[in-house]
């Protein structure tokens, strides 16, 4: 792999596999909260800004966002075998768990107590996602333009419920051009 100027910690393939296993196995109701907690707060492998930038790229690419982050993260630290180790940790376990749950579902269907517990856990999952985005928003500069783009994206998708592709198509070119010009100055 090419050497870049960025100073990055040494991370082994085993450490990648274990970290992404831990993220995956704790990820109830969405993985971004757990990925942020593991990679930034526990391991201190990347900063808040590097994480959100990787997540931004992950969102532009097709497929599950955090899976794309997993691939890019593993690749950054240990090349394509690092990416493979991270993906094995991230998808291997949930695959087995989901099949196990599928077997239980085929035999027992769903119990009312299980349904009630799931309802309570879903409310917690919503809170974790909200807390994650509040923490991540510290990377936004104190300038009106990024906050305007963020607010427009939120209103378009969250309030108006327009399709994501329309909202991205309308906002992304302006946002990229604005960042391009700012960099030229």
């Amino acid at each position: 792999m090419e050497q870049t100027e960025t100073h990055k910690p040494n991370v082994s393939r085993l450490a990648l596999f274990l970290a992404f296993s831990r993220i995956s196995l704790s990820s109830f109701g969405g993985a971004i909260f757990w990925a942020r907690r593991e990679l930034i707060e526990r391991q201190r492998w990347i900063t808040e800004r590097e994480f959100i930038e990787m997540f931004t790229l992950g969102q532009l690419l097709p497929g599950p966002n955090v899976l794309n982050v997993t691939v890019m993260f593993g690749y950054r630290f240990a090349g394509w075998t690092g990416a493979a180790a991270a993906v094995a940790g991230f998808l291997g376990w949930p695959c087995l768990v989901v099949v196990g749950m599928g077997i239980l579902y085929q035999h027992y269907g769903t119990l009312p107590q299980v349904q009630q517990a799931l309802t309570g856990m879903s409310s917690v999952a919503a809170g974790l996602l909200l807390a994650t985005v509040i923490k991540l928003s510290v990377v936004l500069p104190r300038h009106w333009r990024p906050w305007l783009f963020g607010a427009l994206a939120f209103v378009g998708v969250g309030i108006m419920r327009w399709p994501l592709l329309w909202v991205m198509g309308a906002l992304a070119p302006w946002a990229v051009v604005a960042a391009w010009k700012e960099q030229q100055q």
Partner: protein
Amino acid sequence: MNPVDLGGLFLHFLILWFLAIGGPSTIFPDIHRYVVDVHHLLTNAEFAEIYTLAQVAPGPNAMYVTMIGWHLAGWLGVAATTIPLLIPATTLTLLVGHLNERYPNAPIGYAIRRGLTPITIGLVFASSTILMRTVNHDWRGYLITLLTVAVVLRKSLNPLWLFAGGALAGILGFV
């Protein structure tokens, strides 16, 4: 149950995942259409139950496609629905990751990352409010959600305890 055309399922899912820009939720309606309406592989109720179960399993939310595959055709079904999910990530994403590491200071890369980060934050914020409105039926659900936010922002408690608390509140009939 009709015999399942696994090759067709694989190909359809493969095309869908390449279109899934912005995440799995963007192709959810079309997976439902293909599996329930067009090919009658699952009933609407079965689809909803499998989806809910998979949402609370650990791992990315997209794993419901794995459970659909298992339900339809065992391990071969798992392969037919899960491998397509991996292909965009292991081709396109690896390529973009490589370019980004190789040219970390490329102006166009910088402009894309910096320019789109605020939009990403707005979109995650939108997802969290949509999720909040979908799962919470009354003020008690919102109370649990907001308590979770307060605890996570102030304390470094492992949030699995919050899940245990949420499950308990559900079983005791609070929500």
